[in-house]
């Protein structure tokens, strides 16, 4: 018997958006690496001023938020909607901590007189991380709406489409950061 592929998780329109977002981030990443070829010392010296601790903590926060989203979807599929909404709120808490830490990092840099015009490295740093920052905020807003609706009983084991759509977007935000952390903060 022919085995058919399983359906994609979430809405097709969201996946089109995800592909477009990944294309844009991918071009930015490659542009960073290519521009660095002729500015290695400046990129390496500037990179050393970044806080690797907060970068690593933020990576763990996003990974953990994504884990909670997966657990929320599993809980919904088991028809435990209260548990599902609690997982989503845990994911929102992790993601919000990411935003808080990143905001403090931006504040720290700007207080030190560093901004997007300081040099090419910082132009990429602010452009890439701010662009990602806004995606995290949008992801949090989507998760919050889904969490509220889940809490109110709008979804159940037969209606997982919205949560899977929100989850797919959130995992994309996580995936992008997985490349961004070593690229901007670590690799020299």
């Amino acid at each position, binding site marked *: 018997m022919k085995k058919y*592929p*399983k*359906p*994609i*998780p979430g809405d097709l329109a969201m*996946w089109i958006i995800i*592909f477009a977002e*990944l*294309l844009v981030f*991918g071009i930015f*990443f*490659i542009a960073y*690496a*290519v521009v*660095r*070829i002729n500015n*290695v010392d400046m990129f*390496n010296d500037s990179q050393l001023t970044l806080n*690797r*601790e907060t*970068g*690593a903590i933020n*990576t*763990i926060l996003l*990974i*953990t938020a*994504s*884990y909670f*989203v*997966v*657990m929320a979807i*599993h809980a919904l599929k088991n028809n435990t909607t209260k548990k599902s909404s609690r997982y989503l709120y845990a994911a929102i808490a992790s993601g919000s901590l990411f935003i808080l830490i990143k905001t403090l990092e931006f504040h720290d840099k700007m207080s030190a007189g560093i901004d997007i015009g300081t040099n090419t490295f910082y132009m990429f740093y602010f452009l890439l991380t701010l662009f990602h920052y806004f995606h995290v905020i949008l992801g949090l807003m989507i998760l919050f709406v889904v969490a509220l609706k889940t809490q109110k009983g709008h979804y159940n084991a037969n209606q997982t489409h919205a949560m899977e759509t929100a*989850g*797919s977007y959130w*995992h*994309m935000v*996580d*995936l992008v950061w*997985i*490349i961004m*952390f*070593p*690229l901007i*903060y*670590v*690799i*020299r």
Partner: protein
Amino acid sequence: MNKIYNIHTVWLMLVLLTLLTYGLSYIDANDTVIMLILMVVALTKGVMIIRDYMELKGVSLLWKIIMYGWITVVSLAIVVAYLLV
């Protein structure tokens, strides 16, 4: 997913790989070998997110080609650009 490789252990592995990346950042990362290890770690984490978090295991080939293709092309392009220095 099985008893050992499940969503909980995937999360644990992702955290441990992040700590490995952080630890390697304090070794002289100008080294090509360190750069390659860091990119392989990032690629591995990306594949785990696509496969296990996004749950794309078993979906149509087109989706897999786009997602795994994206992470592979981006990682390879970064490695090549770093090797050109």
